[in-house]
């Protein structure tokens, strides 16, 4: 689509307001990773909901055991996992709910919430030590 959707007049709209996920056919979507799909301009993928956050989850590879709890319980598909390995957080789609931190089983946690404005390097430098068993 040459024109931005926002600039379209009534006469240029798709009848019935149908929206399309992709701009070209994808034979089997389960074989194409998110981010690698030919998203159409009417797919929300390019939208960011990152500005909903006041705190962000920061990932610390050093303690992660790749259990994938954060991946399965993330409501917003914002835990990036490839080949069974936890890679990081998709800050465009993370709304900052904090579930990933709560479900993280390691000690210390491999994911922690930090203020949105803090650089990740700073956050990692402040990482707490292992908590003693109560």
């Amino acid at each position: 689509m040459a024109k931005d959707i926002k600039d379209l007049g009534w006469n240029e709209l798709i009848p019935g307001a149908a929206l399309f996920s992709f701009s070209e056919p994808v034979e089997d979507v389960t074989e194409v990773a998110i981010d690698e799909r030919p998203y159409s301009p009417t797919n929300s993928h390019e939208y960011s909901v990152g500005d909903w956050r006041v705190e962000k989850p920061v990932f610390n590879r050093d303690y992660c055991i790749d259990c994938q709890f954060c991946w399965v319980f993330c409501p917003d598909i914002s835990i990036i996992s490839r080949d069974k390995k936890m890679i990081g957080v998709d800050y465009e789609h993370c709304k900052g709910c904090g579930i990933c931190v709560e479900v993280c089983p390691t000690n210390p946690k491999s994911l922690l919430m930090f203020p949105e404005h803090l650089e990740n390097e700073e956050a990692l430098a402040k990482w707490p030590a292992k908590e003693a068993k109560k």
Partner: protein
Amino acid sequence: MAKKYELNEIEVWDGNTAVSHALRQARIDVVAAYPITPSTPIVQNYSKFLADGYIDGEFIMVESEHSAMSGCVAAGAAGARTATATSSQGFALMVEVLYQASGMRIPVVLTVADRALAAPLNVNGDHSDMYLGRDAGWINLCAYNPQEAYDLTLMAFKIAEDLDVRLPAMVHQDGFICSHTAQNVRPLSDAEAAKFVGEYKPVNSMLDISNPVTHGVQTEEDWHFEHKARQHNDLMNSKNVIKRVFDEFKTLTNREYNLVDNYKLEDADIAIVAIGTTVESARIAADKLRDEGIKAGVLGIRVLRPFPFEEIVNALSNVKAIATMDRSAPGGTFGMLFNEISGAMIGSGKSPIILNYIYGLGGRDTTIEQLIEIYRQLDDCARSNQRKYPLQQFIGLRGPKLSFF
């Protein structure tokens, strides 16, 4: 593969039988329906055709008319040709989904045997259901007899599914008086009908899994208006496709259809405007007046939506007095035809005398004598160039005369 149904050149069919054969011949993929008087035989006949092997598609015997129309919309979104039938309360239950069908641009065909709306409960014919759905964004085609109900049902698929239209279409016939009255009908053969209607061309099918599509979105103040404008525009322009399909049908069958059905209007001084079987009665009444030298004519609405503004104005441009006949309780104002015909005439700079008659509610018979009396009132007005009668009168009603304005 469905069996071929052997048909005679002339069949004696009532309106429901005629419509059910048209549905069978249209080779519908999914019918979702719920029976209701007086359209029940359409649903029953279709079930029997299916049971006897005359239908390839599926029939979902849903639990309500709401689900009937919902099923049609969803099947249409999945790439199926779909249709259903209803009347009255069933139509009323469908109304929510009628708007969804047209807004989602799913070309469902709905055949309606028009019937009164409760309360009080009534199973007989009037146009209350038709009027209830008139703003739903559907194409509305109106039949006056079983042959027309058959013809218009076949044509409805071709019109609704046209890629320039993609809007749902209703085919109306009067409950009982048309739906249950057997007359001679000349059907097409199964092959001719199938060829005329054509293969269904799915648009944005949900089952095309390589191109996932989202149907039934939400649009708020920033988009809703544009989508409704587009929908209205396409409905208004569907007139051209309707005319083209009417022409193609005439070439095939020699049966002619027009947006409005004019009867002796060329030189008419007075005219009745009506929908449904009353159009045929009015023609008989008009002839009787013509025998007396009074130039009477009839305008039958064939296509209620899109509203045939130019055709109505052209047909009535020299008429001095017009009776608009509304077979639906007007609910606190004039009847719909009065408002729309008046608007059309004023909008084109004409000012004939226009009267509104409310008639035939709940299947009350309307006689030739009553129609003649209406013509006499019109003649009186036309000759004196004065409106000598109330703007709105109820006719055929027991008790004191009821009129307004």
